[in-house]
């Protein structure tokens, strides 16, 4: 039997598609804001919500959502008050969330299914029909908010002080972003797991920013990468029998290492080629300057020097200055622009 013949796999793949798309769309803003660990903190808080759900025999997805959103609002208010640093506030959230979750879960009556592992690390068999419906609702809301407020969220994440100076509602936007993160955490609790969701918010964005040229491109590429690793990781875990969350995250890390080394390789080749090309001028007899006799020629954003008809551009590196060839110099010198 194939993958899609199982109802539970259909639901797991649907859930993984949604979380793969949504998590990076929110995560990019966290990376921009250098608050990558917020997802982790809220994942921990969500565990307390799960435990409350198990104890009161209500759906843990809803209780987790309430707990995570409350935690998100709380942490933004604490950060805005400025009394406790965001760092310490996050730490308290981490510990409190996990401790509360574990203690409350241990109070659950015996015989009740409380598989802690599946909440923490994800499991493909756990997504219920009701979950899929709730997840779809969360996904639509989160993506709509990002589409509507994306530019403002970018502004606040990029330069909070500037945003405040020009009158953007900074606290409000921060709370919205935190609530989006909280919703995404809950969206992930079946397939990826509460301890690993942060990875799916951060890693696709970390990969995308190595390749993209704009913020918009980064968001779109991150979502694509998120869907790719999330769905393929879920499918893989079906065959290997491993927890889906761990499998997805390992795939994402693999991709991250691959892209990082490819980029590093490309840069070092370019550097080596560059060095070979400018070898001749490494041993340039003098440093070009006002008094060297070679006329300066403005060239875009820098000044070249006319060295017997070809242009030398100073290039400062850690090992001193050398001169890059910036082409022939048409005579006479053209006026700047």
């Amino acid at each position: 039997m194939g993958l899609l013949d199982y109802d539970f796999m259909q639901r797991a793949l649907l859930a993984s598609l949604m979380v793969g798309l949504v998590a990076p769309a929110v995560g990019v803003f966290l990376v921009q804001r250098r608050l990558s660990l917020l997802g982790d903190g809220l994942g921990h808080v969500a565990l307390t919500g799960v435990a409350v759900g198990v104890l009161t025999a209500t759906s843990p997805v809803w209780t987790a959502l309430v707990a995570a959103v409350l935690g998100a609002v709380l942490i933004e208010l604490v950060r805005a008050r400025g009394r406790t640093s965001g760092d310490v506030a996050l730490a308290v959230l981490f510990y409190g969330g996990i401790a509360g979750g574990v203690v409350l879960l241990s109070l659950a009556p015996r015989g009740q299914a409380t598989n802690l592992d599946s909440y923490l690390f994800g499991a493909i068999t756990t997504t219920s029909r009701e979950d899929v419906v709730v997840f779809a609702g969360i996904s639509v809301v989160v993506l709509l908010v990002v589409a509507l407020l994306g530019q403002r969220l970018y502004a606040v994440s990029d330069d909070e002080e500037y945003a405040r100076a020009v009158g953007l509602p900074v606290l409000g936007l921060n709370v919205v972003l935190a609530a989006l993160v909280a919703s995404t955490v809950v969206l992930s609790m079946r397939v990826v797991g509460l301890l690993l969701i942060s990875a799916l918010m951060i890693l696709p964005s970390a990969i995308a920013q190595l390749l993209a040229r704009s913020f918009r491109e980064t968001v779109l590429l991150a979502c694509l990468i998120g869907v790719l690793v999330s769905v393929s990781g879920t499918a893989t875990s079906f065959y290997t029998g491993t927890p889906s969350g761990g499998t997805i995250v390992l795939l994402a890390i693999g991709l991250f290492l691959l892209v990082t080394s490819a980029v590093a390789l490309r840069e070092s080749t370019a550097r080596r080629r560059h060095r070979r090309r400018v070898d001749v001028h490494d041993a340039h007899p003098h440093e070009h300057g006002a008094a060297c006799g070679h006329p300066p020629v403005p060239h875009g954003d820098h000044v070249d020097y006319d060295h017997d008809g070809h242009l030398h551009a100073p290039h400062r590196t850690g090992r001193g200055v050398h001169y890059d060839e910036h082409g022939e110099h048409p005579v006479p010198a053209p006026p700047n622009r």
Partner: protein
Amino acid sequence: MTPEFPAIRLRGATIGYGDVPIVRNVDLTIAAGEAVAVLGSNGSGKTTLSRGLLGLATMLDGDMQVLGAPVGRLRERGRVGYVPQRHSISGAVPATVREAVAVGRLARLGLFRPLGAADRRAVADAVAAVGLGDRLDDKVAALSGGQQRRVLVARALAAEPELLIMDEPTAGVDAASQEALAGTLATISASGTTLVVVTHESAPLAGVLTRAVVVDHGRVAYDGPLSEAGHHDEHLHHHPPEREPAGYRLDQPTVTPRSATTRER
């Protein structure tokens, strides 16, 4: 048409952070269209003064009006432009010059309105005004430090502000970018925009700024023509400033290494 209110009016204003006053009892009126340098050493309070005008520092006492409204009550904050003292604007995630400057335009649009065609044109115009028109779709991180500072200026200009407040726009900027900045400021000043430039070196912008307000130890020590502020500047040179960040001194050459400069509070 001259607006009936001054661009800035401070009466007995005391500004600080938390409940700690930094600038005390300042009276200052700046008329619409003036080009003013706020001078002083590090720790003098000049940056706190400008941050108070932006609502980023707390007014502890007195009265402070910007564009005819109490700070914080000004409805259209897009009317005030701000260039922070920042040496780079490339965040963790790559962004193009266009994207970075578009942020400045958002202030005029409220919370939900998306950028329209006119807004996109204003963004492109602002980038062109700082001489980076050909770099619109380049990554900000690929620009030099001086060019990134010009992007910050463009971001403020994109909102077409009536009042432009700049914090150390020339510090650590190469000569070419300083010249470009002076040219840009001359143009927008001629069009009637009020300029308030916080700086510890007025020389690069001496052709644009006409009035000087010298802040020393949290008080206004001089207020008059920039050309006659020299004596007071001299006085500042010999006064070892308090709480001076390492490696950031008045007598330093114009071009400072990026790593050596520290943000002033």
